[in-house]
C-alpha cells in the first residue's frame, strides 16, 4: 500500500466524518422542526416562532414577551407530548430492527415476544379488576404484565439457547395466552365504559404523557440506543444465523439475551406509557433499510431518526384528520403501515 493510498484513505475518512456530522445535524433539525409543528397544532394554534421563543426563554437565553396561556400549553402539554412521541418512535423502530435481525425474520416487530399482549393483560387487570387496589398505576401494571409475558417467552424458548423459530413460536403462544386472558377479564368482569377505556388504551394514545414520562422514556431509549450501537457489528454477524455468528467468535447466548432484554425493556416502557402502537416497529426498519442498507452501524441510528419523525407525524395526523376528535395513534400508524406491509409482501413474492 503506497503512501498516497493511505493519504487518500485519510481524506476519505475526513469527508465521511463531515458528511456524518451533516446528516446528524440535518436529522436533529428535521426532528426539531416536526416537534415544533406538532406543538403548534391543536385547538389553540400556536405559531412556530412562539414555540421557539418559549424554549429559548426557558433556557434563559432570551426573554421574549409571550402569551401566558400559550407558554403554559407549550410547556405543560404539547412539548412533553411531542418529545415522548420522538423517543417512543425511535425506541419502537430500534427494537423492531434488532428483532428482525436476531430472529432473521422480516416480519418480526417489537411485540413479537408477547410484550404488548402481556402489557394489555396487566392494564386490564388494573383497570377492570382493580388489582393492587389503587397502589399500582396503570403503567406499572402494564410494565409488570409485559415482563411476565417476556419471561414466559424466554422460558418457553429455552432461555437464549432456542433458535429463532422457537422464539417466534413461543412469542405467538404467549401472545395468544395473554390476549385470551385480557378478553376473558374484559368479558367476564368489565362494564361497557371500562371496555371502551381498555380499547382506547390498547390502540395507543399520547394524551396522558407529561414530563415524568419524557424523563423515563428518554433515558431508557437513549441508553438502549447506545448499547445497541456497541452491538452493531455483532448484529451484522448474525446475518447468516446463530451458528455462523458463533463461528465468527460471537457469544451467541449472551448477545441474544442482552439484545432481547434491551428491546423488552424499551418496548415495555413505551407500551406502559402510551399503549400498543403497532406497525412503527415493523415498517420503519424496512424503510430505513431501503435507504441506508442492512449494516447496523448505519441502520440503527437511521431507524431511530426515521421512527422519531414518523411517530410525531402520526401524532399530528391523529389530531388533525378529524376535527374536534383525536384518533387513537395506533389507528393512524396502521393506516400507513398496512399499505407499506403490502409492498413488503409484494417485493418478497418477487424475490422468491
Amino acid at each position: 500500500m503506497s503512501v498516497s493510498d493511505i493519504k487518500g484513505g485519510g481524506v476519505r475518512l475526513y469527508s465521511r466524518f463531515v458528511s456524518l456530522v451533516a446528516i446528524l445535524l440535518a436529522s436533529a433539525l428535521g426532528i426539531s422542526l416536526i416537534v415544533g409543528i406538532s406543538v403548534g397544532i391543536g385547538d389553540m394554534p400556536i405559531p412556530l416562532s412562539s414555540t421557539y421563543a418559549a424554549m429559548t426563554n426557558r433556557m434563559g437565553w432570551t426573554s421574549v414577551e409571550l402569551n401566558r396561556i400559550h407558554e403554559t400549553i407549550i410547556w405543560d402539554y404539547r412539548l412533553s407530548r411531542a418529545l415522548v412521541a420522538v423517543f417512543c418512535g425511535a425506541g419502537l423502530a430500534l427494537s423492531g430492527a434488532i428483532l428482525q435481525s436476531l430472529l432473521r425474520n422480516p416480519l418480526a416487530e417489537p411485540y413479537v415476544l408477547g410484550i404488548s399482549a402481556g402489557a394489555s393483560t396487566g392494564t386490564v387487570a388494573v383497570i377492570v379488576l382493580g388489582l393492587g387496589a389503587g397502589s399500582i398505576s396503570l403503567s406499572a401494571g402494564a410494565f409488570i404484565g409485559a415482563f411476565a409475558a417476556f419471561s414466559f417467552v424466554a422460558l418457553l424458548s429455552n432461555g437464549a439457547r432456542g433458535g429463532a423459530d422457537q422464539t417466534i413460536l413461543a412469542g405467538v403462544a404467549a401472545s395468544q395466552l395473554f390476549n385470551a386472558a385480557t378478553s376473558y377479564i374484559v368479558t367476564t368482569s368489565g362494564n361497557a365504559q371500562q371496555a371502551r377505556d381498555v380499547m382506547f388504551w390498547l390502540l395507543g394514545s399520547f394524551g396522558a404523557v407529561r414530563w415524568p414520562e419524557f424523563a423515563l422514556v428518554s433515558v431508557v431509549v437513549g441508553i438502549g440506543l447506545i448499547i445497541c450501537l456497541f452491538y452493531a457489528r455483532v448484529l451484522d454477524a448474525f446475518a447468516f444465523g446463530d451458528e455462523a455468528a458463533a463461528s465468527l467468535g460471537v457469544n451467541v447466548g449472551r448477545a441474544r439475551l442482552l439484545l432481547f432484554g434491551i428491546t423488552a425493556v424499551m418496548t415495555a416502557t413505551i407500551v406502559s406509557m402510551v399503549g400498543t402502537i403497532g406497525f412503527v416497529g415493523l415498517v420503519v426498519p424496512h424503510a430505513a433499510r431501503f435507504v441506508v442498507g442492512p449494516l447496523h452501524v448505519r441502520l440503527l441510528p437511521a431507524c431511530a431518526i426515521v421512527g422519531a419523525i414518523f411517530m410525531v407525524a402520526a401524532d399530528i395526523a391523529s389530531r388533525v384528520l378529524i376535527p374536534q376528535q383525536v384518533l387513537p395513534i395506533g389507528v393512524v400508524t396502521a393506516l400507513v403501515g398496512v399499505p407499506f406491509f403490502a409492498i413488503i409482501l409484494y417485493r418478497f413474492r418477487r424475490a422468491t
Partner: protein
Amino acid sequence: MSIKAENLVWKIGSKTIIDGVSFAAEPGKMLGLLGPNGSGKTSLLRLLAGLKKPTSGQITLDGKNIAHIKRRSMAQRIAFIEQHATTNAGLKVIDVVKLGRFPHRSMFSGWTVADDLAVTSALERTEMTAKRNDRWQSLSGGEKQRTHLARALAQSPQELILDEPTNHLDIHHQINLMRLVSSLPITSVIALHDLNHAAMFCDQLIVMQSGKIVASGSPEDVITQALLHDVFSVDARVESSPYHSKPHIHFVR
C-alpha cells in the same frame, strides 16, 4: 500437529451421534471426510469448530484443549463454512467478506490496513473482486459459495473447516473450489460426497459410518472396492487414473 480429536463422543439425548472418534489433521494438508448421509460428518465438523461441546473426549489445537480456548481466539484461527448458510439481509459481497474480520476487531477498533489487506486478498483469491458490490440475493450458487470462502479466508485462519462446499455447484465450480482449497497453505478438513473429487484433491481421507471412523489414510489406501461396497453399498471398480495417478472410481450398474 494441528487439529487433533481424541476419543470424541457426542450424544443427543440417548442417541449417540459421534462414537469414539480419534484422528489428527496434518498441518497444511487437506483432510477429506467421507461417509453416507447421516454418518455424522456434519456433527463432527461442528465439534471441531467448537460450535458444540463433546459429551466426552477432547479436541486439541496445537496440544491445547479447545474447551479452554476463548470463542474469539478460536475464530481468529479456525474458519468454518456451513452447508446452505444464507441470509435475507441485502448484504453486498464485500460486507459478507468483511464479516470475516469480526474476530480480529474489538468493539471500538476501526477498520485497519491489515483488515483491508485481508479482505482484498480474500476477494482476489476467490475471484470475487469484480462482484464485490453485488448483493447476496443476486449471486449464483457458485458465487455464494465463493463469497463464503472469501469470508473464511478473510478470517486469516490456520484451519479451515468446510461442510460439503461443492453441493449444488456445477462441475466447473466444483473443480475450481476444490483446487483453490487444496492450494491454500493452511490445514483444511472438508466433508465431501463426491468420492472421485475426494480422491483427486485430498491428502488424507477419513471414512465414517454410523458415527465411527471405519477407514483412514491416503486416498490410495482408503478408496477400495471392498470399502465402497461395505460403507456405501455400491458396486464399483477402482483404478489408478492415467491422468492424475490418484484412484478413480467406476461405478458398475
